[in-house]
Each structure stands twice: as structure tokens, then as C-alpha cells.
């Protein structure tokens, strides 16, 4: 208890010592698929459109479906809102992937620390999100969508994200979290511990490249789940930014891509995606 009190006091002291704050560690509230430490400004509303196409190469890709453009892996629309400077909420809807389709998701995000020029060395946010696939329950008792009660549909992801803007060009981020599905297939685990990393490098004021990787530590061996790895470029135009993604993950929400990525990079099962957002002042 004493240790917890000490940590809280330390956080409070760090947060209340006024220093010049560091902004734009990342351009948006998301890196490529996962959250970043960035927050929306108070009373800003962001509308996001995210999209991932089919396999670029491999047996399901190539010229016959124009490198995946004929297929849709996942699509997500979301509204996110800066309730205060340090507290965001969001609500989204995505097509979903595998057994988890027709998904509504929501999240709350709180910034505990913001990096400062001479002071707090990192930004730290905590994100708690939840997803609800509302598809008709499967009649296959071995399926992860064999829902018997509404509670079984819920999926949760809680993560702590730490980031540092190393220079005006380079930003790094680490995230640690716990992902939980209430209902899983017989050969799977409900809870997953994961760690992720992000590198962002800006070549110019309006153009940068990004890499994002998330590693799940306790996957059950034998199932075909993979760790999502993504590369991307960002184009910033002011008011909105455009991100182009290359990823083996089909899903667009952390509640899905952590446990539902089954595509293998080495088999050419990677796909192009994009996200575009627009901010409004309310």
C-alpha cells in the first residue's frame, strides 16, 4: 500500500511540475493499427475511416484480384472525442474478421504523463477498450462464435503505452497489455499477454514512416495465429492525416488483430490498408 501511495505521489509531482511539454510524438491517436500516446484536444471530434484490402500476394493475391484491391479484409468507421485534455473516448464499428464479425468497439484512454522538454522523459497513457461482435451466434459448438449469452461476446484489451519523442524526426513507443476474450475455441486461451513496439521516423514535416509490431507471449502452439507486423507511411496535410499500411493483420481494432491475425508474412499474406481521419472542433 505504501509503495502504491509513493508511486501516486511521484506521478502527481511529475505531472504538476510545469515544464514545456512535448507534442506530436505521433501524428494521430493511432500509430498504424494500435493506439499511440497522442490524445485529441479537448472538445475535438475525430472521424476515422480505416480500411484493409485482401492479400497482396500469395495464393489469394496477385493480378487475379488486383493485388487484393478486389477484396475487403476489414473496414472500420469510428468517432473519437477529446472529453478533456487527458481523457478520450471512442466508438467504432468494423466488419470484423474470422468468426468475430459485425463488431462494435469502444474505448476510454487516459494520459497520465506527457513528455516534457526538461522534466518528464516519456508520455504514458492507459487505454481500455472493449469489442462486441453482434453477429448471429454460430451453431457450431466448436466455434469461437458459439455464443450462448451476450457476455460471451465481449472482448477486452487493456494496455499501458509509453512513448518518447527522441528527436523531431524519431519517436519510439512501447506498449504492454492484457487481451481477453470471453469465449474462445477449445484449443485457445482466453487471456493473452502482449507487448508491442513502434518506431516512427519523419523525413519531412509532412512525411514519415512507421513500423508497428505486437507480440503475444502465451499463444497456444498449434493454432495458426500470428503476431501482427505492420509498416506504413504517413502523409500529413493539416486537419487530417493519411496513413498507408502494409500489414499481415486483417483486423483494424486491437480487440481483433491481437488474437485474430492468421496471415503469414512469409507466405505473402500481407495487405495494403489505409486510414484517414478528419478532426472537427465542437
Amino acid at each position, binding site marked *: 500500500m505504501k509503495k502504491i501511495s509513493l508511486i501516486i505521489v511521484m506521478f502527481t509531482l511529475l505531472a504538476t511540475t510545469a515544464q514545456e511539454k512535448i*507534442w*506530436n510524438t505521433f501524428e494521430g491517436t493511432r500509430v498504424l493499427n494500435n493506439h499511440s500516446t497522442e490524445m485529441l484536444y479537448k472538445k475535438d471530434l475525430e472521424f476515422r475511416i480505416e480500411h484493409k484490402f485482401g492479400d497482396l500476394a500469395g495464393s489469394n493475391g496477385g493480378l487475379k484480384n488486383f493485388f487484393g484491391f478486389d477484396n475487403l479484409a476489414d473496414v472500420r468507421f469510428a468517432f473519437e472525442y477529446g472529453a478533456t485534455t487527458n481523457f478520450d473516448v471512442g466508438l467504432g464499428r468494423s466488419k470484423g474478421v474470422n468468426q468475430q464479425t459485425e463488431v462494435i468497439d469502444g474505448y476510454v484512454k487516459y494520459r497520465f504523463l506527457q513528455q516534457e522538454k526538461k522534466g518528464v522523459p516519456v508520455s504514458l497513457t492507459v487505454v481500455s477498450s472493449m469489442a462486441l461482435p453482434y453477429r448471429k451466434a454460430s451453431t457450431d459448438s466448436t466455434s469461437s462464435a458459439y455464443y450462448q449469452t451476450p457476455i460471451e461476446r465481449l472482448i477486452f484489451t487493456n494496455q499501458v503505452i509509453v512513448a518518447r519523442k527522441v528527436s*523531431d524526426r524519431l519517436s519510439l513507443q512501447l506498449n504492454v497489455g492484457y487481451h481477453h476474450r470471453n469465449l474462445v475455441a477449445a484449443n485457445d486461451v482466453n487471456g493473452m499477454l502482449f507487448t508491442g513496439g513502434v518506431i516512427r521516423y519523419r523525413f519531412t*514535416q509532412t512525411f514519415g514512416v512507421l513500423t508497428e509490431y505486437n507480440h503475444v507471449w502465451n499463444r497456444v502452439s498449434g493454432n495458426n495465429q500470428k503476431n501482427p507486423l505492420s509498416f506504413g507511411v504517413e502523409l500529413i496535410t493539416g486537419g487530417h492525416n493519411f496513413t498507408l499500411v502494409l500489414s499481415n493483420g486483417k483486423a483494424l481494432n486491437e480487440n481483433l488483430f491481437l488474437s485474430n491475425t492468421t496471415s503469414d508474412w512469409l507466405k505473402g499474406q500481407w495487405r495494403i490498408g489505409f486510414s484517414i481521419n478528419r478532426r472537427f*472542433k465542437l
Partner: protein
Amino acid sequence: MKKTILFFVLLILTGVTLLSINDNVKSRFSLINKTNDLNDLSVLDVLLELGETKPNHYLMKTNQDSVRMGYEMVHFGQLKDKSNSRISKFFVCTDCHNQKKEVANLLKETPSERVKYGMVNDLPFLPASTFFGMYNKTHWYNGDYAKKYGNLVIPTRDSLDNAIQLCATQCSQGRELKEWEIRTIIHYYKSIEISVKDLNLNQSELNQLLTDLASHNNRSVELLKSKYNSINEATFGEIEPKQPDNYIPNLKVGEYIFKNGCMHCHSMGKNITNFEFDAENLTFSFLVSKLKKHNNYSVPYIVRKGTYAINGRKQYMPQYPLEKMSDTQLFDLINYIKSKK
């Protein structure tokens, strides 16, 4: 019979009120018998005492509650108790207007004097006129503002109330102000109007003013009016300004304009504009790469042309008229940005 009595009672009450008001004004000036006492007087009150006509927005005295409300409207866009809605979700007045004196000599509101005084006093270097002394101006939205706002400027030219309304609805892209809100802002303006001490009168001028006040001689009207600028002109410059002859870059001025002008709105975390930046290498490289372009990222273009509010993007940047930033200063800014690349 009753109506006649009521009429006479009202007549007497009106007469008593007018007399008491007149006495009130007179008593303020009848106590002035030393030049030191003059300094705290409002210039407008002195002018009125000397026989000048009251402006439309004239207030006899400020009400402290109204001043506070006007202050809150100007600084926060709404009352602090949130009993009224925000004027604009995009801007507050202080994004474009200072609240303090911007020059040492109020007659010389020139770009070079603004920079000189602003650097010493660490003032924001903004495109619009300061609210200090706004109460003393006689015309608003002058000169080339007609090019930007068209006929909308016509009713504002002779009315501070209308100028405030245009600023709310067009400049800040907000809602129309209610009458009482405009009144509170004018009360606030009056609280930062020009006083005699701001005119830096010498002793003989103060003596003359004292004598003229005592004798109600309007000779000092001209003297007072010659000490401050009652109209802010606005001339829009060229988007490809010519470098002035014998120009020598002054990087200190450029740095001041960048930090106290550009960064006043564009620095990160302020959420005033869609284009935020910091004073880092990437920013300067980007701005240098756009210098020759004719778009919103080009410094000379945006400084001289600004942007316009459009559907879906109401936030816009007002341009700096030549009276606020000279071409020499614009070149200082450009050279500073180049030097930091």
C-alpha cells in the same frame, strides 16, 4: 388630473437625474487643479469636457461587473461561469489582438515601433490591432479590409458595436453577439482606454490642458488628438514582396516575429490552427522548401494573403497588413527561417 400630476412628477425626476449627472461630470473636472491629477483622466472624457461630441459607444463610467464579463468574453470566448455559449469554437479575441499598448508613442503605431516595443516587453506580434485604445478609435475595418470582407465593413466603419459584431461573426467565425454581450465588451474596452498619461505630454502641454479645462477652451482638443492614432489603416501587401533597397537582414527581428507572431497561434498544443509546428529543424526545412510556392505553406504568401474561411474549414489565418508587418520585417522573418534550416 392624475395624468397631469404623473407627467410633472416624471418631468421633475428627469430634470433632477440630468442635473445630478451633469454635476457628477463637472465635479470630476472641478477637482482637477494640478497637472499631476490630469494623468489619470480618460482622454475621451477630457475631450468631451472640451466640447467634443460623444461617440456612439460612449459610456459615462465603467461597471466593474461588466468589465469582468467583457474581459472573460475577450480572453475565454464566454463567461467563466459558462452562463452564455462560446462566441466561437475556433478563436478567442486574444489569438489576434493584444490587450496592451504595442508602441511607446501612440501616434506612431508603425511596424518598426511595434517590433521595437514588442521585443522589449515580450508582446505577441499579432496581425490585428490591440484592444488597448480601441475605445478611442473613431473608425474600424479601414482600408483594404473591404477587400476581404466586402460590404460587411460598411456598417462597422463608424460603429464600434458593429465592428465587434463583425469580428465575432466573420473574423472569429462565431455566432452573433447579443446586445448585452457587446455592452460588456465595450465596458472592458473602456477599462483599457487611453489615459492622459499614455500620451506622454510635456509639462507645458499639461499646463495648457489644465488651463483649457478650467476655461472650457477647446484649443487642447487638437493637441490631444495629435498625440494618438485614432484610425488604424490597413493595406494588404504583395504575395511576392520586393526586397527593400539596401536591405540588411535583422535576424533578431525575424526571430521575434517567428516566436511571438507565428508561434503565437501555430505552436503545438494550442489547437488554434490546423497547421501546428515547433521551432525544430524539420519545421524550418519545410518552410524554406515552400518559400517560392504560391500556397498556404509559403510564408510570404500566407502573411500577405492569409486564408479564407470555407465550408468544412472555418478556421482561417488573417493576413498581416503592411501597417502591422512591413516588407522589411517579412524579409527578416524569411531570413531567420532560412538561417535555422
